[in-house]
């Protein structure tokens, strides 16, 4: 019996190795007629989060083109030669964006800040927007009259996980109690309204939007002083993607001909009036 058993084991081992053979790679790199090598030929696929927040996307419907990031996406697509009906949208969480392996999108747009640490694992386009962080609280809270950073140190601060708002809160405000970390901006707002935290840190356009439209008695205390020129948002592509240089060039072209400035003026409230906390 032993030789038969050994043969059987050997056969299983060979089968296992064979089963791990690499899947057929689709022809990557250039295509025949010089069009961009997107996931689906002739279609540019964008990814954003679900839910997508205002003023970046209006009504959680990026396909409508309404909202700053949705508008930027369609402008970039047009610059690259894709008409509005050649643009597809999918949803992707931040973890799905950074995961290795085949992506289900070409470009991700979701207020992702460019940083050197992230560059090691992701490709970024040129920045399409620069922003700073702001502190929001409710009227009647313990810190509603604060005008300096020192007054915020005793407060309970909240921010969304994985954002530069969190890092800014931890490094610039550096409160005595640990900064509370929440899954997404919806829960950050809920924490503020239910009293789990006294104040929250979000990026300035979001802060202007929620104090104007979403929170009752919301108060924008001010911007946090910039550490290095502010946060730059960039479009995210797979590491080593063939589209990165084309997309970067498109963003640069949009900036040069003033399209980005027009979109900012249309969708993002004027941020000039927000005071800077010192």
């Amino acid at each position, binding site marked *: 019996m032993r030789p038969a058993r050994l043969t059987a*084991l050997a056969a299983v*081992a060979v089968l*296992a*190795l064979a*089963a*791990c*053979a*690499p*899947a057929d*790679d689709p022809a990557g790199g250039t295509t025949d007629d010089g069009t961009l090598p997107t996931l689906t030929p002739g279609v540019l696929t964008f990814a954003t989060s679900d839910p997508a927040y205002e003023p970046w996307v209006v009504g959680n419907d990026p396909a409508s083109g309404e909202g700053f990031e949705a508008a930027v996406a369609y402008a970039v697509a047009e610059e690259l030669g894709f008409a509005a009906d050649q643009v597809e949208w999918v949803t992707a969480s*931040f*973890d799905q964006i*950074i*995961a*290795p*392996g085949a992506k289900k999108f070409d470009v991700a747009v979701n207020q992702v800040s460019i*940083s050197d*640490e*992230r560059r*090691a*694992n*992701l490709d970024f386009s040129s920045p399409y927007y620069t922003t700073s962080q702001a502190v929001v609280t409710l009227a009647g809270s313990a810190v509603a009259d604060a005008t300096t950073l020192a007054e915020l140190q005793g407060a309970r601060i*909240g921010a969304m*996980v*994985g*954002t530069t708002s*969190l*890092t800014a809160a931890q490094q610039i405000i550096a409160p005595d109690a*640990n900064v*509370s*970390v*929440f*899954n997404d901006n919806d*829960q950050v707002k*809920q*924490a503020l*309204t*239910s*009293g*789990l*935290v006294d104040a929250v840190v979000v990026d300035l356009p979001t802060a202007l939007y929620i104090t104007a439209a979403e929170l009752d008695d919301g108060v924008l205390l001010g911007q946090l002083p910039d550490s290095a020129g502010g946060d730059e948002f960039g479009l995210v592509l797979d*590491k080593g993607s063939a589209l990165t240089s084309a997309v970067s060039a498109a963003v640069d072209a949009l900036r040069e001909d003033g399209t980005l400035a027009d979109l900012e003026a249309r969708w993002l409230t004027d941020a000039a009036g927000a005071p800077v906390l010192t």
Partner: protein
Amino acid sequence: MSAPAPAGSPAAPGGWSPSAVQRERDAYRRSRARRSTLAALVSTLALATVVVLGVRAAPGWPRVRASFLDPAVALESLPTVLEGLWLNVRVMAVCAVLVVVVALALALARTLHGPVFLPLRLLATAYVDVFRGLPLILVLLLVGFGLPGLRLHGVPTSAVVLGGLALVLTYSAYVAEVFRAGIESVHPSQVAAARSLGLTRGQTLRHVVLPQAVRRVVPPLLNDLVSLSKDSGLISILGAVDAVRAAQIATATHANFTPYVVAGVLFVLLTIPLTRLTDALARRSGWLGAQSGLAGAGALR
């Protein structure tokens, strides 16, 4: 049978030394043992080789390895993940004690006899049904965001306290059922014998039923404790930074998944000593109840 000991063999203190047949038998057994160890080693190495070769043959492996097993990122994220793990441990320790107390009270309430205790039994049953039916994450959200929203005086607003409260509420329902099963598994002859000795119901419970019941349910209780150590991380939904949340923050900072692997390894390292310690305690104190012939004899294999 009674072959004389050969001249050269060492004499044991009692004058006995193994015979030639015995020594031959021992040698044979040793050679068989060596052979089976060798076979086990070879087959393990063969399987490991197949697995490793198979994984490395995958085209995405270098990228996955860089994304999940990056030593530099692991080292950088280790301090914050350890700090988060310390929160997990503290929450687990405090909640475990509270859960056992509340669950025991619930189990006893459900086993009370007598019509006058009906409201108590009904309340306990309703509590257990409701909190076993509600998903833990819903209880966390309701307690964590809803309770402070009532703005009553004296309601805690710390994420850790509220999260711990939600954990205690939910887990005590599960553990109460475990205790009740233990109590009802004690043979009725024990209760009858206690009664014939003149013990009241309360004394029977305290001196006869509960000690046996608790010893019987130690393995499933340990299961629940390990599960609690993982679920203690869910309080991060209310803002507290536990090990998994700290790993998530580090992942977002570096766009690399290695901190999750670090947190996973730390959790496993946390659980293993817990289970080995309780196994050893149980074996030494003879808690394995029905599996041992005599109390204190340990498990008979």
